Structure formats: C-alpha cells, structure tokens
C-alpha cells in the first residue's frame, strides 16, 4: 500500500524540531525503518512528518563522565562499527547484530528504536539492563528519565507527542563488567520470540549488581528480580526456577506462554555462561 498524504518539514535544529512538533498530529521521522512501514500500511496517518535527519550533532557517540552517550541519530550500523561502543558498551555491541538486517541497520537509529519501544526489540532491554538514562527535549526544556521508568506500556514511553528523544546514556563498562545477550527468533533479523540482555560486575567468583532484562515476554522489557538474586548467588537452576515468579509471558503469534517460559529458562542458562566470562 501507499501512505496517506502528509506534509513534510526538515528540522534545522532540535529547537526547530520541537517548534514543528507543536503542530497537531505531527510525528518525528528518524531512521523511518518502523515508521515508514506503518505509513505504507496506513497504520499511522500523521498530518506532518518532522524529519530530524538533517540536524547536526545528533549522531555522536561520546564518553562523558563515566557514561557512554549515544545521540538519537546514531545508526545501528554506525554503532556496530564504533570502537567506543565495543569497548565501553559491550552489551549493546552484542545486541546490535540481532537487530533487523544490514540494510535496516544502515538506516535505523538507536534513538528511534527506543522511542518506538517495540516490546520484542533488543535495545530497550539493553538500556534497562544497563540502568541507562534517556535524555528528552520538550517544549519546557530538557529532562532525563531512567530507562526503567521510560518504558510505560506497549509502544508507549514517557515521551509526549511534543517531545524528542535526544540521546541515551549508559554507564561505561569497566574491567569487572560482565555482559550477556541471547535471543530466539525464527529467522535471523526477525524480532525476538524471547530475548535476554544482562549485565553484572564480577566480584571474585560471584556476580554483583546483576540485572536481567527479558524482552518479548510483556509489553515492556521486564527485570527478572528473583532470578537475579538466585543467579548472583551462583545457582543457575534456582534462577531458572525463579523465572516462574518473575515472568508471565502472554501468548502471541510466535509462541504460547508455556513455550516462551521454557525458552526464557534456556536463554538464562546461556546468558549465565556468558556472564562468567570477561568480554573479549
């Protein structure tokens, strides 16, 4: 199908984008790899598209005060090639090859992936696992929101229709950082049936500050807190059993609740092995 008619404006700056977003029924256009598909299918019919691709400075990856800051317009492919991401955000580096296909990653953006908040997407779970922060600019200025409070529901975030996601920040990895990532998808590049992003700090032979974020199992990424406690104590099977208390996956077109629960346990065992190793 073809999109319904809309007006188009190219934002010159973040302030200009916010100004344009004051129009009723305006939507931001970043990489467009989800938005334009929904326009083509007429699942969304905005009055105005505000294209932020021409705004300079939003495609930077930088280390700032112990955090890795990833600008909203950083493309997945750019992040995949980035030495800073590989070194300071190894969890995101592990997740990136699972996102869509090369041509999608050439165009799709990190900011867009978070703002879209698909429940089966990789990056939202990574940012939750890392305890990251989201930088938002709106008509009343700038604000910062913790990743866990950012994801509100199915495709729903703390962003209002007048806001723009400017950047994400995640704590830079240190020598004792441990990360793990795994997902099940029917084909490479598909959205996950179930996935798991995890990070921790090595504490001798044990793990501390362990955070497990599952995706594809609920409307938003879900922390598996009982499993975190069990796994931090080194008991992988107790952690797998604890998932019953942490997750209540609903049936969807990919798999039943029972299958997803089983797969979540399989992923946890795999990720537990990864967490035992220092990132290469």
């Amino acid at each position, binding site marked *: 199908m073809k999109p319904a008619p809309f007006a*188009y404006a190219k934002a010159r700056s973040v302030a200009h984008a916010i100004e344009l977003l004051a129009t009723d029924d305006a939507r931001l256009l970043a990489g467009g790899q989800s938005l*334009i598909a929904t326009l083509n299918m007429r699942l969304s019919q905005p009055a105005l*598209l505000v294209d932020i691709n021409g705004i300079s400075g939003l495609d930077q990856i930088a280390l700032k005060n112990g955090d890795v800051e990833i600008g909203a317009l950083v493309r997945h492919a750019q992040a995949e090639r980035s030495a800073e991401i590989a070194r300071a955000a190894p969890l995101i580096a592990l997740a990136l090859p699972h996102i869509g296909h*090369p*041509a999608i990653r050439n165009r799709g953006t990190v900011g867009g992936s978070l703002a879209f908040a698909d429940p089966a997407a990789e990056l939202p779970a990574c940012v939750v696992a890392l305890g990251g922060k989201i930088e938002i600019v709106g008509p009343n200025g700038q604000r910062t929101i913790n990743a866990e409070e950012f994801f509100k529901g199915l495709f729903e975030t703390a962003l209002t229709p007048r806001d723009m996601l400017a950047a994400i920040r995640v704590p830079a990895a240190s020598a004792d950082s441990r990360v793990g990532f795994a997902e099940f998808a029917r084909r490479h590049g598909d959205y996950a049936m179930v996935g798991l992003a995890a990070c921790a700090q090595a504490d001798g032979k044990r793990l501390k500050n362990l955070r497990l974020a599952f995706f594809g199992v609920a409307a938003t990424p879900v922390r598996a807190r009982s499993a975190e406690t069990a796994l931090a104590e080194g008991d992988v099977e107790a952690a797998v059993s604890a998932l019953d208390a942490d997750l209540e996956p609903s049936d969807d077109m990919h798999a039943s609740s029972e299958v997803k629960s089983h797969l979540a346990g399989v992923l946890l065992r795999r990720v537990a092995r990864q967490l035992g190793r220092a990132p290469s």
Partner: protein
Amino acid sequence: MSERFHDIAVIVNGEEVRERVDARKTLVDFLREDLALTGSHVGCEHGVCGACSVRIDDVVVRGCLMLAVQCDGARVDTIEGVAGADEITDLQQAFVARNALQCGYCTPGMLLAAQELLARGGVPTREQIRAHLSGNYCRCTGYQAIVDAVEAVAQARAGAKS
C-alpha cells in the same frame, strides 16, 4: 516549509535530477514511476523483502522505507547505475553461471546487498554471506546457489588481488 510538495535535487546514477515530489512518495516509487528506473522492485512495501534495495550515499537501504523527499541533496545509485558502471559484472556472471536466480524479482536487491559485503574485501564465510543477505528474500532458489555465487566472486576477487 511544512508542505506536501517539495522540490528536490538528487544525483541518480551520476546524473542530476530535479523533480517536484509529493512527500508521501517513497524513494522506490519515485525511481520507478518518475524516472522509469524499474530495476528496483516493489515487493512487500514494509521493509521485509529487500527487493527495493538501492544505495544512498554508498549505503544500501530499503527504497520503500525512505521517502523521495528525504533524498534531496543525496546520491542515489540503482541497479541500473551499478551494473552499468561495470562494478558487479563478475557477480552478475556468477549468478547466471550458478543459476542463482530464476524469476529474477529479488536479483537487483540481492546483487546490491552482496556487493556491499564484497566491497569490504576479504573472503566472507558462508555464514557471513547468509547473515548479510538475510534481509533479501528469494522465493525461487533456496539461497544455496546465491551463496555459492557470492562466495565464488569473493574468492576470485581476493585471488585477483594477491
């Protein structure tokens, strides 16, 4: 500037094109309908099949997931331009030699995706070739012959260099 129709200037296959476009027109429809460059195919129209692949500023993208209006000031290369410039003659020949196409609907996108991988140099593993072509669907061949063709070209190009 918040309007439906926009004037754009694009370098398509090395030639400057100036057109007035409706904002809702996707890049692949612009290429096919306005410029009669029908080598880029329209398949799923939501970014899944890869038949509409084109290059923007040397990067392969989905022609159905970009708007023509967004290409103002950019360089667009389609299969007509890339094949016409002799950039992939060896790859095209390998596709023919190994029956890596039947109906040919996916082939332009498949060639552009494969060339993006091959242009990085070296000889990718079969797994890397499959991963790189994972976003390009072929409903005829079963992919085996396509992977064979891409692998053969990678080996030949690496051999020619050493």
